[in-house]
């Protein structure tokens, strides 16, 4: 139920990262979702796609990385993982 808010937070984070890198286009954002994070990944994907369509950041893909608990992880991850970016041509 709170996936829409989380999708907004992901977009805000990408926007903040873009602002720090002038000229760079962000194409994909990776997010780690823990087993016990309480996030429904299908719903998050749907919310993200709906929001991003209307956003200057489009086209922007979302890559969700599922993290099971155990092996030193608590399983409550809701972390930013990576950005895939296109840099401006330098010549």
């Amino acid at each position, binding site marked *: 139920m709170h996936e829409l808010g*989380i999708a907004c*937070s992901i977009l805000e984070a990408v926007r903040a990262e873009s602002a720090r890198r002038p000229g760079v286009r962000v194409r994909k954002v990776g997010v780690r979702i823990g087993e016990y994070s*309480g996030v429904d990944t299908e719903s998050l994907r749907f919310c993200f796609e709906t929001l991003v369509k209307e956003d200057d950041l489009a086209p922007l893909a979302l890559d969700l990385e599922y993290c099971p608990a155990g092996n030193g992880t608590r399983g409550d991850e*809701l972390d*930013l993982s*990576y950005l895939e970016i296109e840099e401006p041509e330098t010549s």
Partner: protein
Amino acid sequence: MKRIALEGKVLGENDRIAAELRQAFLEHGILCLNFISSPGSGKTSLLERTLEGFAAGARVALLTGDIQTDNDARRLARFGFPVRQITTAGACHLDARMVERHLREWDLAKLDLLLIENVGNLVCPTSYDLGEAAKIVVLSVTEGEDKPLKYPGIFRKAELMILNKTDLLPYVPFDVQTARENARGINPRIEILELSCQTGAGLDGWRRWLQGRMETARQRVPA
């Protein structure tokens, strides 16, 4: 295409505001508690019983979250302590920004205890730090003993589980021992209190827990 690693939480902005709130609570010696449960487990009844135990003039305040209506705020205002309703208009949880906004009109120097009743929901509120000293999960005996297994997130993060409505135990097939084992299986450190807001049984233990934590908050104020 180049890949760059990112550090940080998706809810980093919420966490940043929560950290500011936590610091403000620490400096003022305020104990802040975040009550989370399914709808109907008895959060508001527990808070009513809690307020009843304080003398007039005690430095207690409440924030109560609901999707709609200020019914809970009206129920809780009868006790004469400051109460503010946070109506989320659809959102299934409180976040740190809502708490921060609703606290602005209060003078923190005049508070010792801030009780926050989250929106009735065992899932979403778990992800949002409100700057509280502890999350308290309320479970009632009319629910399943397996709730800690079905909703492990909140039982993992809560310091205390309150098992409410124990007066109904003779009428429902709820096994207290199994519920305790399920909760401890998820979180071995979780404290558990059993009580009935209806009869008042077990409320002494809850009030002792609360007083102990308030004392700790007072002692931790930086010099």
